[in-house]
């Protein structure tokens, strides 16, 4: 049997606060990825509708970047990992920094 020292609770609270901060996933334009492929990834991975995926893809293409998802740090890190797996140029930022 073990007892949890009281001090740990504060650490967990601090981490939970950090993890709850909103983050954004940004996908950047590059001249290699095909528009059809980017749309496919947005639809199949995020489950976005055809219209939403097309809109985000065109934003990447024309404006150079698009905020494709928002969430806590853990979720956005998982999204970045998935996007890099697909070969998309994706980064994360704190929501207020963008």
């Amino acid at each position, binding site marked *: 049997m073990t007892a949890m020292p009281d001090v740990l609770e504060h650490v967990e609270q601090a981490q939970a606060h950090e993890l709850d901060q909103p983050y954004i996933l940004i996908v950047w334009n590059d001249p*290699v990825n095909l528009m059809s492929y980017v749309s496919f990834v947005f639809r199949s991975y995020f489950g976005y509708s055809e219209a939403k995926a097309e809109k985000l893809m065109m934003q990447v293409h024309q404006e150079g970047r698009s905020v494709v998802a928002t969430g806590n740090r853990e979720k956005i*890190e998982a999204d970045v990992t998935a996007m890099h797996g697909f070969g998309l140029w994706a980064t*994360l930022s704190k929501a207020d920094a963008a």
Partner: protein
Amino acid sequence: MRGFSASLEAAERQLLRGLFEDVITLLEPEQVPDEDPLWAMVGLDPNGHKEDFAAPSDRATKRLLPDADPDDAAASLEFRRLSERGIRERKIGALREAALLMESGSILLNEQTAPRFAAAVNDVRLVLAERLGLESEEDAERIHAQDDWSKAETVDEYLALVYNFVTWLQESLMQAMLKSL
């Protein structure tokens, strides 16, 4: 069952197989001879704790594994420590699967394997583009305009034709896959 099929000639399959294998070589993590199997089990980089752990120095490899947070070098490095090995291994898995598919003249993909094949083809294009110095939409148009194999003389001209062939393959696949969503 829904799926996709493509017929490729032997020379095309041989070319693609070589390209998939080239990217695998690029992505294979440095072998650490006395690696604790625990590193592999949890998917962490065995070099991650070393002081000189850094982003890949090769530009094409860096394009496949970009910085996660360009405004925060330390956070990007931390992300690499935790995620890069897993991403490399997933990519290598998809590329190996793609290379194996090239053994048959009739390539069959289902809804599970098609996205992995598309990602493998995309990684090949990203590496070829980096080798070709393709950085802008103008570069992309210039390279796209090259379509005559009989006129290819330099390595870059040959690479551009290879790039265009792989692009055509991926676009054809994407059109079919988008219709099936």
